[in-house]
């Protein structure tokens, strides 16, 4: 008799005859036996040719994914609920961890195993499954980022612009308006042919429900896929959530779509990965996070970008989120994520409670790519606004001392307040970029120079409505693109002023009546 070892396992496609259910034993296969069980981690011996991220199954068809390969043991992360017995056998499937992705996912909320969570029935996708763990595509597949990603929020689009294909970190304290900003950004993509993939990672169920309700109520689910895991889900599922969201985003990008991917939040993901790593016995590093936590996040974030046509065209704009603690943005995970993104939007709880929406702290927010997508007039105007806000803040500090204030200082303070009134934007209030520019440019024209911030607050919506609905924006956009600087742009606004005076006066008279 020859030893079983002398007969190597045939390739997977020869192992299973047609019409034999996958659970039926094949004549020869690789097998391993559970030697240690720790919650959702099972150490298995055997499986001599196993590969990382391969799916293994028990006799009862409970699935696990190989996450660690030691000298004589294999670490399996159980994805299904199953009672694992000592010496439970595990078989190879020769399949990497993968999910089925298709347009059928739009409008649906799924878990990382592509199972629906919204009660709208099964999702049937005929396409081949796509491997979840993929290396980011190389530099030759990438295109220079040239287009602005429109969030519809004046403060972001003008002062900290985000580009299509950019990775912009969203960070801030709890209750600083991050989720509101993300929801607004997704909702504002309606009619812009942008696909949104919203990953809710390990959040409380009521928060997930609020996100989905908000998206549904504003008809944003039509172009959105929500991949969600709640805080009560098993850590392996939570760990997989951002990878699955990225895989879905890549699917749509490869078909030429511009995709917005929200990963909310990566701090929770890091904590669950830390738990898994510590359970696997990997040595803890700083704050007990494993040594490869940077790699784990970077390989996800690197999958975003703008791609050449031969690589599908399209782009993935990634908005990873992390919650900070008491404005401490120098913690390990936060600085890690800052290091792998092209800038960050810092949300301040203090500004949020002062009534600023969005509560982004402009002085501490950065966008390393977005600015290159703005035209000359936009860039010049943004610089001018930042200088004005900074000067107004500095003067506001002096004016509190009670000394006599010069008319010039008072004027700057007034302009600063007017600008802040323009930058305040209530939820679900989309403003096109050109309208944002006009609104901000008006501060430097005689139209608003003779008025106070109260006038701006009261008439902002009227002006936005007029510019959006009655003004020929597309023609004006072509003219603005030819301007060499912001001065030219501000001068061009003088032609608008008589009409704006007329509509704002009409509003004042209507209010008096």
């Amino acid at each position, binding site marked *: *008799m020859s*030893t*079983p*070892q002398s*007969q*190597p*396992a045939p390739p997977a496609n020869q192992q299973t*005859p*047609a*019409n*034999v259910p996958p659970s*039926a*034993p*094949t*004549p*020869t*296969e*690789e*097998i*391993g*036996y559970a030697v240690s069980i720790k919650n959702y981690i099972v150490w298995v*011996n*055997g*499986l*001599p040719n196993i590969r990382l991220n391969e799916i293994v199954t028990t006799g009862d068809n409970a699935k696990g994914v190989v996450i660690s390969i030691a000298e004589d043991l294999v670490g399996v992360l159980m994805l299904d609920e199953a009672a694992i017995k000592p*010496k439970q*056998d595990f*078989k190879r499937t020769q399949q990497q961890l993968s999910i089925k992705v298709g347009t059928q996912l739009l409008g649906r909320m799924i878990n990382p195993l592509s199972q629906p969570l919204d009660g709208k029935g099964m999702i049937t996708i005929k396409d081949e499954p796509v491997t979840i763990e993929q290396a980011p595509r190389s530099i030759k597949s990438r295109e220079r980022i040239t287009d602005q990603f429109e969030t519809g929020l004046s403060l972001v689009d003008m002062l900290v612009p985000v580009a299509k294909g950019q990775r912009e970190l969203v960070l801030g304290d709890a209750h600083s308006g991050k989720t509101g900003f993300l929801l607004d950004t997704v909702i504002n993509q309606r009619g812009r042919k942008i696909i949104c993939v919203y990953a809710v990672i390990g959040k409380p169920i009521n928060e997930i429900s609020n996100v989905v309700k908000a998206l549904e109520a504003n008809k944003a689910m039509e172009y959105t896929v929500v991949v969600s895991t709640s805080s009560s889900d098993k850590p392996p599922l939570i760990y997989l959530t951002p990878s699955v969201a990225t895989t879905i985003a890549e699917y749509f990008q490869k078909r030429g779509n511009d995709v917005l991917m929200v990963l909310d939040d990566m701090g929770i993901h890091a904590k669950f990965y830390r738990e898994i790593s510590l359970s696997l016995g990997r040595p803890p590093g700083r704050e007990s996070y494993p040594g490869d936590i940077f790699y784990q996040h970077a390989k996800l974030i690197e999958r975003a970008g703008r791609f050449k046509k031969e690589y599908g065209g399209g782009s993935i704009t990634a908005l990873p989120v992390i919650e900070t603690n008491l404005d401490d943005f120098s913690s390990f995970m936060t600085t890690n994520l800052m290091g792998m993104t092209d800038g960050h939007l810092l949300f301040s709880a203090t500004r949020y409670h002062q009534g600023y929406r969005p509560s982004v702290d402009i002085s501490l927010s950065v966008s390393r790519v977005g600015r290159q997508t703005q035209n000359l007039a936009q860039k010049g105007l943004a610089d001018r606004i930042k200088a004005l806000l900074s000067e107004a803040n500095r003067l506001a500090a002096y004016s509190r001392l009670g000394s006599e204030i010069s008319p010039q200082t008072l004027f700057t303070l007034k302009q600063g307040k007017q600008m802040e009134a323009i930058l305040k934007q209530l939820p679900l209030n989309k403003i096109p970029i050109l309208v944002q520019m006009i609104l901000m440019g008006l501060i430097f024209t005689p139209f608003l120079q003779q008025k106070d911030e109260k006038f701006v607050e009261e008439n902002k919506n009227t002006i936005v409505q007029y510019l959006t609905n009655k003004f020929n924006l597309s023609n004006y956009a072509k003219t603005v693109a030819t301007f060499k600087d912001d001065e030219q742009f501000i001068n061009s606004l003088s032609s608008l002023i008589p009409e704006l005076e007329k509509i704002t006066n009409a509003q004042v008279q209507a209010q008096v009546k």
Partner: protein
Amino acid sequence: MDQTLAKQFLTTTFTKNQALRRLRLAKELLELLFFQGANPDDFENTFNKLKAKYSPYFVGQEGLEEDVKFIYTLGPNFFKNFSTVNINDQTALLEKSINDTKNILMYLPFELPEDQVIVLGGWFKKNLGEDTLFEINYDPELIGGCAISYKGIYKDFSLRAKVNENKVKILEVLGGYKR
């Protein structure tokens, strides 16, 4: 650990379960010899105490009598290698040797009688080396034969595998007999 001790222990031990059962009995005898006031040189009397403790259970526990006899066959020379100082280390090493020994898993649809275990174990030792143990896994779905798993490779030699392999053909033939 002197490898001859492990070799001596495993020569007439055929299954891993048997080895671990026998190791437990050996540990018990060592405890009697060194920690229960017995004379360490008086192997016979100490062994008799062990035998007396287990003899009421010989009926109904297949293999227990064989295991006790096995301890006797190890003889006093085997147990002279142990002392109150090294007893823990030596038994731990013996256990490690058992766990590290080549282990063949055999899937059978029935429980193998003890005498057949010896016959089969002898065959494995003769063909695959003295340092071979085997283990039996009960798989009620097996028909006509057995399956073997060794170093992570599972091979089904049973009729079930042949049936599964030719399932389509068999169904076609059976389909011909449909009324």
